[in-house]
């Protein structure tokens, strides 16, 4: 876990957010649409980049009739994919606010500024000429963006949070998939990172 040792800023950010901003940072609207539940394995399999990152800035703009937001994320811990700690990446999400007009696409991932998150990311589908070149999208929309917080025990954990999507099991599945947010909720970040690295490695062997 070299990145964790190196990542004192993350711990500091987490602790500061817990101490200073709990009222504002923990509050949230529940937005939702309808999606098929993805397991942790599903998210890993569908992603090209997997990181613990901290959203640092964002800009929203109109793309056709939609508002989209580009968020610059500082990578704290690289779990999978060709990214390194200290680098940044740009994540495109649907919705945002421009000149007094707001737009919510219910169920899209929310990336609050300065709030660390485990992010499952992948490239935008080919053919999106309007989107910013090189930007990534969150796999599974809100399912692929898991907030991290420091509890009273000062341990960074993946936050139990209601997934922003109305989830349904995949049609025809023999057993319902346990959504990733439920599987990972409450896990200490180092433990979760280790498990995700293991899954990432297993994916590479498939």
């Amino acid at each position, binding site marked *: 876990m070299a990145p964790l040792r190196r990542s004192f800023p993350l711990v500091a950010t987490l602790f500061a957010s817990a101490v200073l901003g709990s009222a*504002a940072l*923990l*509050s*949230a*609207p*529940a*937005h*939702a*649409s*309808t*999606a*098929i539940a993805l397991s942790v394995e599903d998210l890993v399999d569908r992603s090209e980049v997997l990181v613990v990152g901290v*959203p640092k800035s*964002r800009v929203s703009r*109109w793309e*056709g*009739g*939609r*508002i989209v937001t580009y968020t610059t994320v500082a990578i704290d811990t690289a779990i999978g994919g060709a990214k390194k700690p200290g680098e940044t990446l740009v994540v495109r999400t*649907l*919705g*945002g*606010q421009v*000149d*007094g*007009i*707001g*737009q*919510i*696409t*219910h*169920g899209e991932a*929310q990336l*609050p*500024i300065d*709030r660390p998150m485990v992010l499952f990311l992948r490239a935008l*589908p*080919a*053919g*999106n*000429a*309007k989107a910013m070149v090189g930007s990534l*999208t969150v*796999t*599974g*929309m809100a399912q692929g*963006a898991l*907030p991290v*917080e420091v509890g009273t025990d000062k341990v960074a954990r993946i*936050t*139990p*949070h*209601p*997934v922003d*999507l*109305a*989830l*349904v*099991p995949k*049609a025809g599945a023999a057993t319902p998939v346990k959504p990733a947010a439920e599987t990972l909720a409450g896990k200490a970040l180092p433990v979760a990172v280790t498990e995700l690295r293991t899954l990432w490695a297993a994916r590479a062997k498939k």
Partner: protein
Amino acid sequence: MRRSELVLLASFTLGLLTTRDAFAWCRTTTTQGFVPTSEKPCDDTGIPLYWSTRCVGFSVQRDASRWIDLATTRSVAQKSFDAWKNSSCPADPVSCTGSFDQGHPSIEVKDLGPVSCDCVEYNGKVGNANTIVFRDLAWTECDGTPKSDADTTLALTTVTFNTETGEIYDADMEVNTANNPITTDDPPGRVLYDFQSILTHEAGHFLGLAHTNLPQPTDKTKTPTMYARYEQREVYMRDLSNDDVCAICAAYPPNRSAPCDTTPRRGLALECGGGDPETTTKSGCGCMVLGQKPSGLDAVIVGATCLLGLGVVARRRRR
């Protein structure tokens, strides 16, 4: 522990539980970028979203779906919206207590007829439509741009609003029939992903509601429609729970004074308007057939565009 302390503790615990139930439902707000947590699933920092009129229009994209025809779609959509309209409000919707006989919520969603536009868009300078559109062949934007997560998304609702007031300007729903077996059967027919359940849930979002914080009841048929889980092959989310009723009644109290005007913002657009508020008057035509029209230069531009440029927007029509 002394008896008085026990009583105090019990009272405190009961109070917490009561408060949690009272605020189980949540409304969507103007806040950007917050993530719900189990500790605080409802945002209380932003302004709740709402429709300013008592009546709101919706329009089904005229091609509907090869799986669900236009007439069925319109019928199911109306039923879904009517479920919210026909609620009987309690005396206190915030605490969700009192007898549920205080009248209906002051919101009604009416079918304005089909439209051609299959885009999710908000037009800042020309007309709009609150559209229900199917993605039958592929989960793409209306211009063909592919979407992420095509195979895992059943439906998306996009709501456009004023960030200062929370007033909703536009709401569009997309239903992904390209990748999912969405059915309209009533039990005991073949029910897979139930269309009416999906639309009733999405209608809640259309009206400015977010997911409820209430845990799923043991009797799952009492699960709130705004609960964040669907169960395949079930239809119980077609019917609202008390929690849903309290939410809609708190958002739109029966005694609210508001005009009944179903006209979408800046008029009903039968065709796509091009979207981007900065360029809509140049890229498309929002031909208004109902309600107010934009004034001044906007009206001139729109009129000219409608007369001269129908072919421009026809490119956005489905064939």
